[in-house]
């Protein structure tokens, strides 16, 4: 009987090991372990075994059952694993395919640059102001020390409106609003759309974007202005820039400057971008004219300030290498999708 048990166990284990399908394993289980199976048959014959051998046979019987059960469980588990592996493999996906649905949208390059520069200024303690596109002649000119017969008005070809107002020719009128509404000392910028009555070509637009900046404090000097502009431009260009101030005439500042930066393309040695001069004209700036402070309700004896104007459209064109200004307001997706 011992022999018989051993042989049964060995055969069952071999059968399980070689089973190719879960069904074959099940057949072995029923044949060997089932209620009417072989082990059950052997155990039914225990009565015929001499009592002194029963302990040993019983033990062998249990061992055989346990080992066959373990083998079956192991084999079944292997089949499960295989099945899962096959299923998962069948679920293979090509993740290099583009996603269904719409493609990502984009922000206009002018939006991008405005946000970037606004963030920079806010971090430097500046308030961002808005002003209207339709302005009064007073705010656009008179309050900026440009009286009606001033030749500077020729420098800015103006769109006039039927109600006597105009489309602002610069963001500078927001200075006036800033001086009237913000507490002193003040630091403000005003980005926005401005208009000039000019023929449009690849480098001229009648509609473009500027950013006006102003700081008024107890004591503001040319040295402060230069420091500030350098800091600002380093922030914009994300590198140190060499700047040069030279005289520039703007009626709302005195003294007034044109600020040039050393050409970022050639580093100052001269190239087509800087017309071989090594310098690129970037922004007009200056100390706020006492008349402008006065018209803004600020005592020029007590306060002084600087102001500057940054051409956002020009900056965008420099940043992205855009060679035709008309693209910016052309609405062409082939352009817009690049940003």
């Amino acid at each position, binding site marked *: 009987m011992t022999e018989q048990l051993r042989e049964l166990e060995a055969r069952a284990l071999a059968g399980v090991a070689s089973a190719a399908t879960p069904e074959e394993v099940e057949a072995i289980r029923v044949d060997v372990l089932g209620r009417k199976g072989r082990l059950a048959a052997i155990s039914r014959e225990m009565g015929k075994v001499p009592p002194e051998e029963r302990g040993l046979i019983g033990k062998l019987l249990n061992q055989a059952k346990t080992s066959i059960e373990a083998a079956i469980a192991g084999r079944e588990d292997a089949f499960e694993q295989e099945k899962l592996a096959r299923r998962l493999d069948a679920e293979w996906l090509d993740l290099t395919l583009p996603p269904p649905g719409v493609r990502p*949208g984009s922000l206009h390059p002018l939006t991008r640059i405005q946000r970037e520069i606004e963030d920079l200024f806010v971090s430097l303690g500046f308030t961002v102001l808005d002003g209207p596109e339709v302005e009064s002649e007073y705010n656009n000119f008179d309050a900026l020390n440009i009286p*009606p017969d001033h030749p500077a008005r020729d420098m800015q070809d103006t*769109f006039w409106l039927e109600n006597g107002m105009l*489309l602002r020719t610069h963001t500078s009128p927001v200075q006036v609003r800033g001086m009237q509404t913000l507490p002193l000392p003040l630091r403000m910028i005003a980005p926005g759309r401005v208009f000039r009555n000019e023929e449009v070509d690849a480098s001229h637009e009648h509609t473009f974007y500027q950013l006006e900046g102003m700081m008024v404090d107890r004591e503001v*000097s040319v040295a402060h202005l230069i420091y500030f502009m350098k800091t600002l431009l380093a922030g914009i260009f994300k590198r140190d820039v060499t700047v040069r101030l030279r005289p520039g005439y703007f009626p709302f500042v005195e*003294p007034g400057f044109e600020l040039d930066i050393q050409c970022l393309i050639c580093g100052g040695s001269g190239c087509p971008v800087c017309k071989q001069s090594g310098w690129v004209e970037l922004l007009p700036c200056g100390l706020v004219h006492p008349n402008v402070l006065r018209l803004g309700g600020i005592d020029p004896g007590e306060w002084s300030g600087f102001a500057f104007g940054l051409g956002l459209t020009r900056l965008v064109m420099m940043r992205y290498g855009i060679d035709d200004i008309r693209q910016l307001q052309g*609405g062409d997706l082939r352009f817009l999708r690049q940003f």
Partner: protein
Amino acid sequence: MKFSYNWLCELAGVRALDAAAMGRLITVHTAECEGVEPWGAHFAEVRAARVVSVEPMAGHHRKAVIDTGSGTRTVVCGAPNCREGIVSAWVPPGTALGSRHIETADVGGVTSEGMLASGAELGISRDHAGIVEIEAAPGEPIPGCRPDSIIEIDNKSLTHRPDLWGHHGMAREVAALAGGQLQEPADTGRIPSGAPLVRVRIEDYALCPRYSALVFENVTVGPSPLWLQARLESLGLNPINNIVDVTNYVMAELAQPMHAFDAAKLAGGTIFVRPARDGETCAALNGETYTLNPSNLVIADGSGAVAIAGVIGGMESSITGATTRIVLESANFHAAGIRKTSSRLKLRTDASMRFEKSQDPANTVRALARAIALLEQVSPGIRLAGGLADDARPAAEPIVLELPLEWLGRKLGATVEPERVRAILEALRFEVSSIGEGVLRVTVPSWRATKDITIKDDLVEEVGRMIGYSSITPTPPRVATAPPRVNERRGFHHAVRQAVAAQGFNEVYNYSFVSEQEMARFGRNPGDHLAVTNPIAAGQGHLRISLLPGLHRNIVENAKHAVSFRLFEIGYEIHKGAEVRETPHMAAAIYAKDSGEQSLFELKRLALGLMPGSETSPCEARAHEHPARVAEVRWKGSVVGRLFELHPRLVEAGRAAVLDLDLAVVESLREETRKYKPVRRFPASEFDLSVVADARDLSATIEARIREHGGSHLENIEFLRVFTGPPLPEGCKSLSYRLTMAASGHTLSGPELTGIREKLLEGLRAAGYELRA
């Protein structure tokens, strides 16, 4: 404005400063130099040569043997005036003459060694008729003609500097910067005394602060000498005749425009400076006849206008070959008046450009003195007749400023030694004296006092620019730190941009202008729009009151090369009225070549993302809207915009859905009002419901009914689907919803749920809806 480098060097008394360096110096300290171009480089090579003999050749050509001072040469010449004995300009082989390279060449079998040149070929006059005839010995350079450089200065940077519209003014700067000895070209001692032969009557000194004139007789009119023609030509001024050329030369030198009248053509002995009569005409030197009005100032004789003051002279009294007696005008006019006349007549001249900058009244007589010397040079035998006619209002008191040096240092952020400040101002011809501790008393010279320098801040610029701003050390400002005031509106607009772009929309920027055709397409009239009185082009005459025309243009244009796309713009509508209102809007569009439904619902989803809980309710369609696909967008009870499909008439192929939101209203509603509700602890129950309704019944209406009859435990209504077709009758649809029921304090029991359901079904049936199992 063009400056001759040679001339500046002469006047400024500087040497050893090349033209490029002078350009840079001017840029950094005075005004923007736009470029330095060589002029007349060939005069280094061109030499005087005497024509020794002339032999005719075939055609118009002649073979000339010339004495070049360094041997004889043979040249072929076509000029009619090429004759034995004259001295002309010989261009040797190997010389570049503008873009031409002159070489030894075979002409009709004769070897021509270089050429004899006309004034036009040499670039010193407009004369093509023949070769130049000069007085010089063979081998000498051409008198008055030498290589020069032209320094081009940006006019805009001279706007505030009347003095820099002449070489002498710029030379003053150069002399101050480079340490030269400024030369004074005018000798006012030459002004004759005695009674003038012409009388001047100025009607309004505000418009004409000064009018000075001299009479000359025994005048010979003819071409100017070459040096004078060459100088004018190099500056882009057209040589005309010796008299006119002198006036232009003085203008280029001293910034004082002048005008010469033929005295014989002036009626009466008095020159009147007066406003034009209404409708008075003036036939000007440029061949045009201008009709004037009293806003224009004229120079008139006894019979009428003979010049438009400060702008242009009249044809009738102009200098001709027959002129023997002239009246030379040197006047000063009010800048704004000249500017107005010049822009009204659309006529900008060298004179008007200068007068617009507020010229110095003290300069008129100085210019006349200079002209006397020049006229004597170019018109031998010319004589002054009578004394100076000079009508003027009393000269303005000099401007005297007090300049505290400590204050100057604070403005610049740099300390400048008092001696240095003084030296700088004196080099620029300010009078400086010291008054008390650290304060200078500065008298402004007349040519800087007309507008340019009026307050001490203007002196900060003078000192700053002369020391050079690069000598100022950048210094961090000491400022109080405080968080800046936040611009909520801007932040909101940026957030909307970000959100919309994240949904696949590309941002566009459109113009603020709208054409009449575009407004008509959107059912609007020109009268609804604020009009531009001086539009740059047809179609840009009005300001937009809607972003839609622009967006429509984008759709039509992009549809030419894209199958489907999404666009949006955030911009301002500009509405006319007693107060102009600028309203920020966000307009988004989806274009696709499909049935258009999906696009509308995508936009609705966008609206819900921006405004949770917003609703769309049917409304009357406008001209540009699809009449059956339009809704008002409402949020928190307010209308915030519209959702619609563009009328198919406006979109050729495909369809375009649009969401147009008033961002001002949206922003005002966006205050966060929600409050946390505790999360439900007991499970909910769901059941589905299908409601049969008329095909055009609104889902929103049915949902409202469900809510009305669903009782207090109805937690959520989820739309599942819409169904049409058999077995439903024609004109009907079935809308299916999944309802969620829950109580906050317990689990709803079976009988409770049945009760709720029965009540709901009963309510819906009573409202006229059929229910599908």
